């Protein structure tokens, strides 16, 4: 496996020794919540994980639920990162569900069942995938648009998230979600984002640089790893803080003050 361009983010997410027999896919059975805000987008974390998915095992696959951008957008970005999504799609390793126009039926309607139809789509793909792909990931590119599609019902969103969480423990797949923190801050009780933070095994949080704008640093990342009692026992919460700089063909991560 290519090990040369691993950065701090990879190390923190456990990608430093993946791809071998012992550690085929480090995010197995884990729920990764990526949180960002208006000032600092964390979409690059999704792109990064996506790229890692395809550069690992040949029996890994991704199911991508796109609520905010079309396929061509991701294809263009991933091409810059050295990964051909269209080819992966043709290989059967990348399943792209275009949910841009998706809208739940209103509550009063007879066929109202929350987001059960979305889960049905996911499970159909998952069942097809698990025949020959051992390690797969489910990605949702924007939780807030999912909430819009669910007519603003955060409870429906949480139901769907619960079912996806269930898939991670049942099939050992990874589940990666991007959400926006700041749009929930004004509510009297920002339940959705808090519930997601409880659910998450790994929380990746992107923020603008605390000390103000800088040319060479685009923001700071906090990665919180709750390694709860998966089979190997209980361990503590680990926190990593570092800075990042987004480049055309990747992202550079470094500890504060260590950039040359």
């Amino acid at each position, binding site marked *: 496996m290519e090990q040369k361009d691993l950065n701090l983010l990879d190390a923190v997410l456990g990608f430093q020794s993946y791809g071998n027999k012992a550690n085929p896919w480090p995010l197995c059975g884990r729920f990764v919540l990526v949180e960002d805000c208006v000032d600092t987008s964390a979409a690059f974390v999704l792109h990064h994980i996506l790229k890692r998915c395809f550069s690992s095992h040949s029996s890994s696959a991704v199911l991508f639920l796109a609520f905010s951008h079309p396929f061509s957008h991701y294809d263009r970005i991933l091409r810059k990162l050295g990964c051909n999504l269209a080819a992966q799609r043709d290989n059967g390793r990348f399943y792209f569900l275009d949910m841009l126009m998706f809208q739940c039926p209103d509550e009063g309607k007879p066929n109202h069942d*929350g987001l059960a139809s979305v889960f049905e789509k996911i499970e159909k793909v998952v069942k097809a995938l698990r025949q020959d792909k051992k390690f797969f990931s489910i990605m949702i590119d924007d939780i807030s648009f999912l909430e819009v599609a669910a007519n603003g019902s955060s409870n429906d969103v949480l139901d769907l998230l619960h079912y996806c969480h269930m898939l991670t423990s049942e099939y050992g797949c990874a589940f990666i979600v991007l959400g926006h923190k700041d749009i929930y801050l004004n509510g009297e009780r920002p339940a959705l984002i808090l519930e997601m933070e409880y659910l998450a095994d790994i929380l990746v949080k992107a923020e603008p640089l605390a000390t103000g704008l800088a040319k060479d640093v685009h923001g700071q990342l906090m990665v919180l790893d709750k390694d709860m009692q998966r089979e190997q*026992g209980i361990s503590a919460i680990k*926190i990593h803080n570092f800075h990042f700089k987004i480049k055309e063909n990747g992202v550079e991560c470094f500890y504060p003050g260590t950039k040359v």
Partner: protein
Amino acid sequence: MRSSGKMAESISRSLRDGALEGELAPILTIKDSLASPFASHVFSHILLQLSSNVMAQKSQSRGIVIVALSRSPSSYAALLKMKGVDAASSNKLFHILDCYTDPLGWKDKIGKSGNVMDHSRQISLATSAYKTVKDMDKLFLAITELGRGLVGENKARFCVAIDSLSELLRHTSLQSVASLLSNLRSHDQISSIFGLLHSDLHEERAAAVLEYMSTMVASVDPFHHSADGQRGYFENSLSEQNFTKGKFNVRFKRRNGRVRLTCEEFKIEHEGISFASVSSVDGTAIAGLLPKVQFNLQLSEKEQIERAKVVLPFEHQGNGRPIQIYDGRRSLEENNSEASPIPSGKTEKSAMGEIIYFRDSDDEMPDSDEDPDDDLDI
């Protein structure tokens, strides 16, 4: 090994002893917040303690019904296996009501025909699926039915563990969760109930309602309260950090209404969670109570030793010397052996001259800082 503190032990003890004749079954609520999300560790700890008591037949209950809402049944199987509970006995002691895999019946709706793959992973624990989590009356019936299945129809009792009261509150209303708990605790075959609550997900009244019904409330708090009272670990800027510790506050309600509050420390270790009493000697207990101030209110060890050496004026009583209590009027001429700087000044005093001060009256306070010229009228 797991050493448990006194409080964690007494919680386990009172869950073990269960309901007294003519009283409701005790309820334990374990609550935490995002700043210290370790309640599930406490939950597992209590579950394991109770199960070892049940296994040794030391407890009132003969079995445990686990209502799994936020963790998969297989994770419970793994937990029990890791702690050396063998499958044969665990099948007789535990029954999991699985509200995790399909709480709303979505899977059922989709795969009516071929759901063969779902149970491919064998779980060593007895598990029953439950698919209508929004219906609390049905849930009550399901729990009691499973319990009866475990312990039989007679007077034997069982214990109920609910791994997320928060999840229940999300699916239904506060009233229906309260009535579920109230029905459970008055059921004559239930010996004790414990559940987990993420307190910051709900309104304060939700936590209050549940705490009213609980005999014990164990709350898992971060060690240091940050300025705004939340987000314990989010605010640090260290590049790498591990969080393993916190405070374990327990509120114990006695039948006569007495409430006991205690505070312990917990630490997450590889083998599990361990509790230790906060030793008040080293001052950490006091440190936790004091608000954060900019100057140092604590004494270092050396300072404490030195402070202990200082003999206070009234402490001379009883060692043969005349009892002298300084009342602020005359200086204690004889008291010259102990304290260092003042007596050394005193020995030279006779040569240097002295200040003699007569107080005007006894009404005046010894060290009054009143302006003596206050009533001067110029």
